[in-house]
């Protein structure tokens, strides 16, 4: 596999970042995840963290180096993450259960498989156009589909952020799955939280990522969303991946051809560190910060 990937998560104007993002790849398979911990419930960031961690850890144990069945992997992973969040809250006897949305995508043998819960989205951008995207689990989306609202009204609707399916709540989550979608060279797969797609809209998002270097375009896209998001800008997160032919020599691209069968590379954004209390800097956090920095050095030194 050969691809270029960039992930980033920012707090926006909120005091804490409850979004989590990660990607992980073996020689033959790639997993990307975005989870948006839900505000209004306690510990949204913990729900998001559990979801992302659960999926990446399952991936590491099951992708050997390919997954037997990517859809089954996504279904089991999301279901178990839901239970893990529920159990975490139950053990602590929390009155309110932490919740999170989640969108996850697996790419294997040049075919993409994805699933989502809630209103974090996946877009497949081909030739500058969105050729596939997830449908939010929100009432507002249903109303648009029934013709009761148009896109503009939906974008400003007071309950546009109310999701009816999430991980960690008291109901079993409703999950939607994609078709098996073969990727072409040049395709861009974008997973993002509503903090990104909300202010930008699908149109602008696809236009910005249609060409050029993802490593440069993605941070700019976040800048733009942050600007449009204004004074109340929500947490915003993205994992963007451009798919290349195996023999394409693209600067900054990752090739897994030379990876050993049992090797994994996992990138998880480390945000908590900026918002923790002074004095709680752990060894692990230091190691993570150094890993992030050296990864960035490697990425940009090409």
């Amino acid at each position, binding site marked *: 596999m050969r691809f270029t990937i960039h992930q980033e998560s920012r707090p926006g104007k909120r005091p804490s970042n409850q979004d989590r993002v990660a990607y992980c790849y073996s020689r033959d398979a790639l997993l990307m995840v975005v989870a948006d911990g839900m505000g209004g419930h306690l510990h949204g960031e913990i729900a998001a963290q559990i979801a992302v961690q659960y999926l990446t850890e399952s991936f590491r144990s099951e992708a050997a180096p390919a997954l037997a069945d990517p859809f089954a992997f996504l279904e089991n992973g999301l279901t178990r993450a839901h239970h893990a969040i529920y159990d975490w809250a139950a053990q602590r006897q929390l009155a309110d259960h932490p919740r999170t949305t989640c969108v996850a995508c697996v790419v294997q043998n040049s075919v993409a498989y994805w699933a989502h819960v809630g209103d974090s989205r996946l877009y497949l951008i081909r030739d500058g156009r969105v050729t596939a995207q997830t449908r939010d689990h929100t009432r507002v989306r249903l109303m648009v589909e029934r013709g009761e609202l148009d896109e503009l009204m939906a974008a400003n609707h007071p309950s546009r952020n109310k999701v009816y399916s999430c991980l960690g709540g008291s109901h079993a989550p409703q999950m939607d799955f994609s078709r098996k979608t073969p990727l072409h060279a040049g395709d861009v797969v974008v997973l993002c939280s509503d903090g990104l797609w909300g202010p930008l809209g699908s149109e602008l998002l696809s236009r910005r990522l249609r060409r050029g270097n993802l490593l440069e375009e993605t*941070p*700019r896209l976040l*800048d733009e969303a*942050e600007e449009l998001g204004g004074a109340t800008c929500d947490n915003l997160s993205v994992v963007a991946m451009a798919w290349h032919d195996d023999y394409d020599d693209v600067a900054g691209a990752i090739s897994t051809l030379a990876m050993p069968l049992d090797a994994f590379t996992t990138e998880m954004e480390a945000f908590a*560190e*900026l918002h923790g209390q*002074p*004095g*709680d*800097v752990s060894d692990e956090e*230091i*190691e993570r*910060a*150094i890993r*992030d*920095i*050296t990864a*960035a*050095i490697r990425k*940009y*030194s090409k």
Partner: protein
Amino acid sequence: MAAQLNNPLPPGYQLEQYRIERQLSLGGFSIVYLARDESGNLVVIKEYLPNSLALRRDGKILPSIAEEHKAAFRHGMRCFFEEGKALAGLSHPNVVRVLNFFRANETVYMVMQYERGRTLQEYVQKSRGEIREKFLRGVFLRLLNGLREVHARKLLHLDIKPANIWLRSEGSPVLLDFGAARQTLAADLRLLKPMYTPGFAAPEMHGERQLLGPWSDIYSVGASLYACMARAAPQAADARIKGDRLVPATKRWAGKYSPQLLQTIDWCLRLNHMERPQSVFALQRALAQPKVAPPPENLISSLRTRLRDLVAQ
């Protein structure tokens, strides 16, 4: 509390794959070394070692950190990480490049590219006669390209001054030392005060830090240009607020430099952050096109300043 000076690592010390040549500078927050990598190339290594929290005694390698300072020491590392992250994600010919980042000796180190040259401060101090306008415009225009990239990443440098501007032997500038680039950090840690250099720091660095923005770095750019002409730092902004004794560049160097350049400097050095160029781009436009006049002086605010000065006297 009087902070003691830290002892640098000795010349010849092998730090991972690098061999220390000598100490370049010693700040309150870190020590900077010149070193060689395994293939003999020169690199610059910055060691996180705030002297208010960690002390390296003579002849020792590991710093001693008092129990009550351990948490603050670790927390201060975040500033260092911020700097590393800021620089690692940036690849620009006018911004210093980070080559490596690692942990050793109970602290952390950042390795940066070394290039032949000297700082703008050294250049100005050693040159005889006036610094030519063409040179200043050339250096600062290119430097601003780098600063624009920094701002595009939502970062502020916050310590721009001639000593942090490196001139390569062929004359192109490199922005150094992002040690103050830490807008995200808590300012409530008393032992790790935000650092700035009097004379170059914008007034909002001294007080209302929530007003910090690109215009704060732009103040420092103006102060650096002023300092190149004056060969000394301009009056510190906090002192200017109490009684502004800074002679405007337009008055001080009238006839020696073009009015347009002098006006641009005064524009950057406005005490009110709203009256300065609001973006690097706006400033670059002024520096690139000698004929464009800066916006007219805001009459009311200049009257207000004069009134305040009268009252202060």
